[in-house]
């Protein structure tokens, strides 16, 4: 049996390597930075670990409803497709920077992309 995406990518260690790189990218992007909390950076980091674990095909307990509830206030603040695309772009750039292979990146981006309607509450 072939390895799962999460194993191929490097599991929890890969999430750990990616989370700071990814968070730094979104915090310096003027288009999306205001959606990311800097008063509770450790809490924010924990949320991003959950998100990356899910996107990397790892064990998670996210449901579509959780994503809807979590992002509902941001949608009221104007969160839309353009922001989703920027953050997805930062995720892809993070994976490229960490030298993840192209096929795995495509799988991660497909999982992340599948959350679009829930995140944007459509």
């Amino acid at each position, binding site marked *: 049996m072939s390895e799962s995406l999460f194993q191929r990518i490097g599991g929890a260690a890969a999430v750990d390597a990616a989370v*700071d790189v990814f*968070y*730094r990218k979104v*915090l310096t992007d003027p288009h999306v930075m205001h959606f990311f909390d800097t008063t509770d*950076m450790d809490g924010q980091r924990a949320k991003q670990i959950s998100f990356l674990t899910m996107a990397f095909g790892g064990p998670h307990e996210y449901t579509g409803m959780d994503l809807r509830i979590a992002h509902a206030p941001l949608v009221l603040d104007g969160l839309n497709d353009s922001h989703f695309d920027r953050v997805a772009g930062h995720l892809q750039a993070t994976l490229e920077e960490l030298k993840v292979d192209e096929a795995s990146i495509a799988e991660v981006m497909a999982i992340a992309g599948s959350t679009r309607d829930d995140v944007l509450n459509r």
Partner: protein
Amino acid sequence: MTEINFAGERHALAPDETVLECLERTAHALPFSCRNGACLTCMMRVRAGTLPEAAQAGLREGQKQQGYFLPCVCRPDADLEIEAPADAELFGRAMVSEITHLSASICRLRLRTATPLFYHAGQFINLRRGDGLVRSYSLASVPRLEDILELHVKRLGGGKMSNWIYNDLAVGEALDIHGPNGDCYYIGGEPDRPLLLIGNGSGLAPLYGILRDALADGHAGPIHLYHGSRTAKGLYYGDELQALAREYRHFHYLPCLSGTVDEAGPEPGVQRGRADAAAFADHPDLSGWRVYLCGYPPMVQTAKKRAFLAGAALRDILTDSFEMQDVRRLPRD
């Protein structure tokens, strides 16, 4: 409807209410201080039921296993039976062995305990006076260097504990202490890592401990300490730190004055501006560094973001933010 069972009484929690708020609403007087899950003053213990994870964040593994939790950040999803821990489980006694005024608004409090306290320099302890008032102070002493506990107390306008320590407390009197708590301390095993220490006011206390702990541990990588104050008098321990910088060539002490020239007074060898601003200007790339930030919450919060964006890993940024209970307006120092 979620209920808590405390002291034989059942209370229904209002929506989004914490256990601490519920107990206050139902006229139970519990000790508390920060109300934010940081100081551990209100710590209680669960007898039955499942705690939300957030209620134990920041506690040690042993405390979690024993069912300790923080009612100020506990919003339970299921019924809980809880109790206040017995006093002796949490508090020990300490005797005041020295009170020295280091500046107009900072004094050094030294305490002696009957049994040695196991702690890391830079952690904090809670002090409790006779009437139950509790406040947190960081440890400037280093266990391997000295037997006493050393705290730096900044006198704050309206600060109940700090004014009492300043005006009324005397050598030989006893205080209750609880701790140590907190994770802002020197981590051994990586002797070559560059360290950046930034503090303002009595935020120097934990940094003074962490610095001396690192030097005593044989830390070989560069250590830069930026201490900020509004006035020259607020740069206490300058002589001690300069002496350490002469003794250890890889340690650099950089005092910074943020007040106007008139307020601050002329002071050779002191940089103008805020300590965090000076530190980030001198060190634009912090990849691989460990960063310690101690002092006023707004400085700690902005500096944490800047250090992270300058390349420090978030787990390598350790912070000790003052909590300020009864202070509306801070007198600037």
